């Protein structure tokens, strides 16, 4: 379960709802469940099995590199924010090694 | 193909000679003919000072001097600032004050600062800023460069 913050430009698809509690263990599952309730929203966020190139996913404020595979904790906040251009996209292709000092 | 000219000059205290085309600048000669890449090209039209050298005691932009003009004269480049005993005080103070970040302008500044202190061993902050206004730095904002030069002047005066 997570609290998904719907980007303002997609709120017309959710009947104006700004935040929604959605179940799912990964970002991908959450988007699928969201699409189940509001058909068409997945297509705005996902293309070719990946998060659309101009969108970044932030879980509890940290931009997630793992895209649809990213695990989501209970009561995480999920935001869809613009991905940045110019070689500074915060989205490495592979999952990061677990850090010795990683808090998660 | 333009005929190359044979030029003899005194460079960093040594007699050297080289061949160059008349259209080649002294900067090109230093870098591409003599392999002394310490002098840098930033603009190639005398506006940034990254190519600063001392020619017969005068601070010049080597991009605005022709290679053939060095004949029979005395040239000092960044490579000639340190001695066998070690770094020049200006170089040492640049390191201590962290007066460089990317370092590309640093050779030009050190040569220019040496030319200043050779003429005026006790400059004020304003005089240092005025003298170095022909050297552009984009990284440091000049603060630590000015402090390094002022302290180098003090160190050199103390030794003298």
């Amino acid at each position, binding site marked *: 379960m997570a609290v998904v913050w719907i980007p*303002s*430009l997609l*709120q017309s698809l959710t009947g104006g709802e700004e935040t929604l509690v959605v179940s799912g263990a990964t970002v991908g599952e959450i988007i699928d469940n969201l699409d189940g309730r509001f058909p068409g929203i997945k*297509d*705005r*966020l996902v293309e070719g099995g*990946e998060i659309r*190139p101009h969108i970044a996913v*932030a879980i509890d404020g*940290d*931009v997630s*590199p793992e895209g649809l595979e990213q695990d989501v904790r209970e009561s995480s906040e999920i935001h869809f*924010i*613009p991905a*940045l*251009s*110019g*070689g*500074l996209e915060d*989205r*490495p*292709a592979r999952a*990061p090694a677990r*850090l*010795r000092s*990683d*808090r998660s | 193909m333009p005929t190359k000219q044979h030029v003899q000059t005194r460079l960093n205290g040594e007699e050297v000679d080289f061949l160059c085309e008349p259209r080649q600048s002294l900067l090109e000669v230093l*870098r591409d003919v003599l392999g002394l*890449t310490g002098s*840098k*090209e*930033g603009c190639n*039209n005398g506006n*940034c000072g990254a190519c600063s050298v001392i020619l017969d005691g005068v601070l010049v932009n080597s991009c605005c001097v022709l290679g053939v003009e060095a004949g029979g004269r005395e040239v000092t480049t960044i*490579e000639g*600032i340190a001695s066998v005993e070690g*770094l020049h005080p200006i*170089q040492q103070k*640049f*390191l201590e004050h*962290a007066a*460089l*970040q*990317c*370092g*590309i302008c640093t050779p030009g500044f050190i040569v220019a600062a040496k030319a200043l202190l050779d003429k005026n061993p006790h400059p004020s902050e304003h005089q240092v*800023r005025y003298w170095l*206004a*022909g*050297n*552009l730095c*984009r*990284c440091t*904002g*000049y*603060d*630590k*460069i*000015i*402090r390094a030069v002022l302290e180098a002047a003090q160190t050199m005066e103390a030794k003298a």
Partner: protein
Amino acid sequence: MAESTTYKVIGTRPIRHDGVDKVTGRAIYGADVQMAGLLHGKVLRSPHAHARIRSIDVSRALAVPGVKAVVTGADLPPAEDRVIQLGEGAVNLKYLSNNVLAGEKVVYKGHPVAAVAATSPHLAEEALALIHVDYEVLPPVLDVREAMKDDAPLLHDNLKTKSLGQETDKRSNIATHTQFKAGDVEKGFQEADVVIEREFTTATVHQGYIEPHNATAMWNPDGQLTIWESTQGAFTVQRQLAPVLGIPVAQIRVIPAEIGGGFGGKINLYLEPIAAVLSKKTGHPVKVLMNRAEVFESTGPTPGSYIRVKMGATKDGRLTAAQAYMAYEAGGYPGSPIGAGMMCIFTPYDVPNVLIDGFDVVVNKPKTAPYRAPGATNAAFASETVVDELCEKLGMDPLQFRLHNAAKEGTRRPDGPTHPRIGYRETVQAALDSDHYRTPLEGPNVGRGVASGYWFNVGLQSSVSINVNADGSVTLVEGSTDIGGTRASIAMQAAEVLGLKAEEVRPIVADTASVGYNDVTGGSRTTFASGYAAIEAAHEVLRQMTERAARIWKVEAQEVTFADGVFRNAKEPEQRLTFKEVAAQLGRTGGPLTGSATVAPRGVGGAFATHIVDLQVDPETGKVTILRYTAVQDVGKAIHPSYVEGQMQGGAVQGIGWALNEEYFYNDKGVMANASFLDYRMPTSLDLPMIDTILVEVPNPGHPFGVRGVGEVPIVPPVAAIANAIHRAVGVRMYHSPMAPGLVMTEILAKG
């Protein structure tokens, strides 16, 4: 966080490891690279801002003795109009490739069209003049608002406005529309007692690094391609080159030389593919250099922009609503930092009702590239001026207003997430308490201005290996090119963990074949993320060294402790070995020892800055003289304080240049009239006083030493701070940047 905050190495000021090479002229930068058989390349660039290429005839150039090859866009593999994943981000392959060498169209004056390799650079330049290009010249569009109009000339056949996965039907110069919304701004403005709405424009500005771009390429007959160049990211170059050249990543090795400044401008591909295909055609290494005019006209400046900001506050100084309309010029291809600008514009404040609309718009200017906190300076010029006008109307001190409305941990940002632990309030308080702010300013036509700024910083990926030498020193292999002293700050973090002195850790910056993947030196990430990798690698070294000590004492590893540089046997406390002593016995205890780590740390800390400037305006010429400048910033934990100060001073001065003089002057044909350092006027030492710095340390809990990125945020406040100071000096508000003397005079005279 580290158990103890008394550090032995962190916070000291050792001489940087590469320092002697840089003060003696020995350090090798990209243009200094020499090798046998080197040919020299030069690039032919479009004289037109907007044109279709009908044909290119290179035959006369090829016929010149000494000219060994000529290439055009046809020598690159056809680039599809699709987005590709580079690993560190997505990019449109056609735009990337066409920007390197034009396809059917040129979209800015200076757009590369062809290139020559010859035995001397002078010969290569002469040969360029013999290449004939037949252009169909098209009308250029040179202003963002003009480009957004329905009847504007269109740059690209397939470009339609995208908005979160949806595309309009009509072709347009507007590439994207993005929006952030919170609460209800209409309601918020109704609740306000004071509302200010203003429009701002900013001119195109360049990063201005003193070293022009360079690239040397050797394409071996076996297909292995080696590139030597000055770059902010060897791996990023490698990843872009592979799809543009149509070869596997594994065949490309990028060897970074020292770099003479970047500020974000030396990340994208420019010369590398050109040097590569020239090398392939000639069988020789080819070096291609840009001259200064090419740097201005053909690399990536930061956007010119149009921004409208409306903010409302109650009479006791509480912000109720903030709204922005932001249109950024992307240059010839989409991809301005509009998203980043939107993420920064109101972010220092706790505002319940926000609406931000942002537009990425193509125009016939060079494709923009990141410039130090890209997009944020334009944004802060607008928002921080409006805040100042609100304060004036309310009769409130501008720093007190900021304290009253400051974002803190838990405050929701306009883009959605909440702030983690941040130090904004602390910077404002430090500015209030500063000697500068407490010193009265007197004199004719003098004024003091303040402004704040935010940059989110990034984390991304870094890899480090540490090899232990027999004398107890270590070699640290990292992949972050050193633009501002990061070799030292990374080495210091490893030294702190290992109990060594900074000089005992020898850092080297390695190439793509010699170290694990590293993202760019940029985004204020290097001391944070590469430092993090160094810390993790150092812990791995300690783990292995602990096992070696255990082997020496014939005990279990968990019975060995390490503190203050010494290993101790918990069972026999008088048994101790220093790091050096264990290192001396590596051969006997298992062989050479290497610890590596590759990280993509979360917990990136955002950065805040508050600047104070005193200036004087000459009412007869409009010239502004900076009298005093103080940059206050939350730096998390300053690993090497001199280099942190250096980032703050350098960024502030770039901001001062942006505010007072720097701009691209275009004629109506879209040709830059001032493409030289003479007329693109950056600050000199004579234009400035000392730049005072106040380092506020609110540690970032996301890093073991509390590091927060520091490099970018210093450029965000200066333009607004200066605009606000000019107002206090001569009573005029400046709504265009740069505030060059002519413009200031115009405003003074208009005021009467």
